[in-house]
């Protein structure tokens, strides 16, 4: 049973446009959601997080939106840059110390 799902394996956008990466979850007990970015042959790196008591968190070009009623979160990157090309994982936490990851979405930003 996949508790965190990223239904789009890949996404391609033009440089300067908005990238929107989506994530759905099933467990209403999740209280924190995180996005990680992963380049090839490297470990994931933390990007941005959001608490379940908020509906938006912004950090520079990155904004995460949380819709609890729909059990959906999204990551917006504006404007997208070629260096943003990577695999993005969403993750959720219900039990302290344990993250459940989605399958990942590979973002390609074309110049």
């Amino acid at each position, binding site marked *: 049973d996949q508790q965190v799902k990223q239904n789009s394996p890949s996404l391609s956008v033009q440089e300067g446009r908005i990238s929107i990466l989506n994530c759905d979850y099933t467990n209403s007990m999740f*209280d924190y959601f995180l996005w990680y970015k992963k380049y090839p042959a490297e470990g994931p790196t933390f990007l941005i997080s959001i608490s379940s008591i908020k509906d938006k968190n912004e950090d520079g070009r990155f904004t995460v939106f949380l819709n609890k009623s729909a059990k959906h979160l999204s990551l917006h990157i504006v404007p997208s840059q070629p260096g943003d090309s990577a695999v993005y994982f969403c993750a959720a936490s219900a039990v302290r*110390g344990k993250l459940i990851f989605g399958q*990942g979405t590979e973002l390609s930003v074309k110049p």
Partner: protein
Amino acid sequence: NAGVTQTPKFRVLKTGQSMTLLCAQDMNHEYMYWYRQDPGMGLRLIHYSVGEGTTAKGEVPDGYNVSRLKKQNFLLGLESAAPSQTSVYFCASSYRQGLGREGYNEQFFGPGTRLTVL
């Protein structure tokens, strides 16, 4: 400050062989984790530790054992490797996770170990 390091970076095993993956962190983190990444599956938690001398099972613990004898090290063992354990293994560490709405302490990941079991 090296962060999280993993040894080895690559390894090829034959079915039935054993090996140990070593993870080390120099950030004085209390929590450490072992994940595996497989195509289309994301990262799945194998085992984790909330402190020296303690370990707990994650989502996919079967076929693996772990030990946390020192705070800075977390070892992942495969006693009898199987082709299904071919994967990329990531170690991570974090500060102690608080309770309630204290925020979430991010996990810092190592560069990974690519393991192939023939």
